């Protein structure tokens, strides 16, 4: 374990544990419970500096040694994996059976546990849904060391509460994931991207609406605006059988106008988060254009270079800023973006930023239902020892 990982976003972990089994994870958590130690779970550590820094980290619990693909039942399109498995190596393994987990690895090196804990989905969420939609079963070791299960290994299952939904995106604040079961999809025979550069927000609104309102069934619909006032690239992914993809790309190309080009490779920015400062922005689908306009204006006022991209087809965007962006200006940009998101029915969350920026704005912003969330945390982790302070409302 390298010492830079033991340093969590400026907070030094007192000790690092790298258990090799679920039992060992439980043992660590039981010990921590007995001695009232705080615990920060992590996988490859690629998103340890997301959210807020932990208030304390007596133990950094590194689950990267739990990296087995436990069971892949190709006939049932289901896979059971340990949390330390990297998304990229899982993809290689599943591809042998011509299958895939339809979650894009938007942060290189991510492990399954980290993806689930941060609820991080990419372009294909338009057709296949998000992490929570594909997760069908989960094993979590609770703060007190108890090993617990929810869901199972069949796709259709309504027995008991689906706690997997709660652990997804909880940033390790409710327990440590030691196993996850996912629903898989077949790898499609063919894929094509239709890409067009559009001049402004209004044109993007028209194009996105046209594609969504058509019957082409796109797998993904992304936009990218690398310079705040520059042109906006729209890219549409189509997947299916070869003749189908051909006909459908032609239809999308017609919808996007004369400048559209079709190819069998993704644009370079596809499935890559902007950054290193990352702001996640959500909006009602039809209100993406005014949000884009608002971001452009906010960037102009704060004189910041902002790189905006994301899944316009579902109303989720990411704004990236340079590491050395002025903290004060960045803070103002976040607040402005938050107001625009609110007007668009959504939220703005500062996923990743230097301490100087986070000192100026609340990373999570306003959250509906916070008092219920507090009670939930009190139930699962009464001493608030799991990743304390990383999550919403200081949880």
């Amino acid at each position: 374990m390298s010492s830079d990982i033991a340093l969590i976003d400026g907070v030094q972990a007192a000790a690092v544990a790298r258990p090799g089994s679920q039992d060992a994870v439980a043992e660590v958590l039981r010990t921590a419970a007995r001695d009232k130690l705080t615990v920060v779970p992590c996988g490859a550590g690629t998103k340890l500096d997301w959210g807020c820094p932990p208030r304390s980290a007596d133990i950094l619990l590194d689950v990267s040694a739990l990296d087995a693909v436990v069971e892949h039942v190709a006939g049932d399109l289901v896979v059971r994996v340990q949390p330390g498995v990297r998304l990229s190596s899982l993809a290689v393994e599943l591809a042998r059976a011509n299958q895939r987990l339809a979650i894009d690895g938007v942060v290189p090196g991510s492990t399954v546990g980290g993806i689930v804990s941060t609820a991080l989905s990419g372009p294909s969420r338009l057709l296949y849904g998000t992490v929570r939609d594909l997760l069908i079963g989960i094993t979590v070791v609770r703060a007190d060391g108890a090993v617990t299960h929810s869901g199972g290994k069949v796709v259709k299952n309504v027995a008991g509460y689906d706690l997997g939904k709660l652990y997804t995106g909880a940033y390790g604040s409710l327990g440590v994931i030691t196993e996850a079961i996912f629903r898989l999809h077949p790898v499609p025979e063919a894929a094509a991207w239709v890409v067009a550069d559009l001049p402004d927000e209004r044109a993007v609104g028209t194009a996105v609406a046209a594609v969504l309102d058509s019957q082409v069934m796109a797998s993904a619909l992304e936009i990218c605006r690398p310079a705040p006032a520059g042109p906006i690239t729209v890219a549409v992914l189509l997947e299916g059988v070869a003749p189908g993809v051909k006909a459908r790309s032609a239809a999308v190309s017609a919808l996007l106008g004369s400048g559209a080009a079709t190819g069998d490779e993704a644009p370079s920015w596809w499935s890559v988060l902007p950054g290193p400062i990352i702001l996640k922005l959500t909006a009602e689908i039809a209100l993406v254009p005014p949000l884009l306009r608002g971001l452009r204006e906010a960037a102009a006022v704060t004189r910041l270079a902002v790189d905006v991209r994301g899944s316009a087809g579902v109303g989720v965007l990411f704004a990236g800023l340079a590491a050395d962006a002025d903290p004060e200006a960045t803070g103002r940009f976040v607040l402005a973006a938050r107001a625009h998101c609110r007007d668009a029915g959504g939220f703005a969350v500062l996923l990743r930023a230097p301490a100087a920026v986070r000192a100026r704005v609340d990373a999570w912003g306003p959250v509906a239902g916070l008092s219920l969330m507090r009670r939930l945390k009190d139930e699962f982790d009464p001493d608030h020892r799991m990743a304390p302070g990383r999550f919403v409302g200081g949880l």
Partner: protein
Amino acid sequence: MSAAAASGAALALAERLRPLLGPDAVLTDRAQLRTYECDGLAQFRVTPALVVFPRTAAQCQAVVRACIDAGVPYVARGSGTGLSGGALPRSDGVLIVTAQMRTIHQIDVANQRAVVDPGVINLQVTRDATPHGYYYAPDPSSQQICSIGGNVAENSGGAHCLKYGFTVNHVTGCEVVTPDGEIVQMGGKAVDSPGYDLLGAFVGSEGTLGITTRVTVRLLRAPEAVQTLLAAFHSTDDAGTAVSAIIGAGVLPAAVEMMDALAIEAAEAAVACGYPEGAGAVLIVELDGPAAEVDHTFAAVQKHCRDHGAFEIRVAADPVQRALFWKGRKSAFAAVGRISPDYIVQDGVIPRTALPEVLRRIAALSGERGVRVANVFHAGDGNLHPLVLFDDAIEGQGEQAEEVSGAILDLCIEYGGSITGEHGVGSDKAKYMPRMFTEVDLDTMQMLRCAFDPAGLCNPGKIFPTPRLCGEVPGRHKEAHPLVQAGVADVF
């Protein structure tokens, strides 16, 4: 509380609620109350002390607050079609019926959403969206009568959930009257609200975490093409291998449904659906999507059926014929009433690849115990609906059927499946939960319940065999950790 005191408390509640809801919206007449004594699972019957019909979220909140003040339990009810006794009332409690909350507030095509009241009937959402070229995907067989609120509570599925997912994948927001009497907005038209996914946990919680008073659902663009075939096989084994071949080839049909000989016989008797004669099993396979995809794949699906023993394949030429194929399948539960005076509708799940083996074991079980079992199921996702037939007039048959039905659930668990795929646990299957989950698993689930409903008044007695006493776990620290206090003070 004694029975007399309990009904006294309920009557006092009625007096308190009448001025708030209006006299017609509060029932105390015994005969009227009896109408609500059960849901679709008629084995369980309890007459509620009081039935109320709120019209708005504020009225619903007022009812819940009154119940909290009086310490009286309450249960939500939509259309009462649930098959697990989820809406089974409490004799000392209030039944909150959403039948007066049936407004579709918005069909928002630009955002691909509809905003509806909880009592809105599932099919009505699709009817209102159809003129715009959209529809609401979850389609339980009961869709002409069941409510969206009930669908949310049960996380209902339908024939097309193989491709499109369940209610939980199609609900983006719920306004909820929580068991502490507050109104909380979970999600909305936009996705990915920050914080714990309360909405994800609420959907499928069987009415135990609060009452939803407004639901935002996704609307999907209607597919360009739909192709449906009906294939007849000599045996369920053959039909099962055909399903495996289709899925194995990377095809994701919108629906794959199977019926065995006894289920076909019942459907013929009831609705004369005219399925091929002499079939040991029929499959309905439906593909939808862009025409260029569907046409190509449909040919491949027909070939897989033929290669695996289909002796007759019919392709629906038009929507009328498609409806006829589906009629037999969708009426199957009720149709069984034609061939047996009584029956149990079971709902279990197995990994799809175990289908042929499990069907053989169900047949063996049926033979051994002399109890007939008709099989209707969502073959694509391994969701079985065995219909266990019996005659209650003959002594002991009811118990025997109950035993066989339970043994089928044991089979589902043995093969790594689930005790319910869509009908829920409710009152019916709470006793089976320990066969699928450990005590610690169930205890952990109930932590969620304790966070929402520490007093345990919201639909108590459902899902869990033994309720957890909230806040009474030894070794728990109710006062905040000093560090936490310091930290929170830092943050705000």
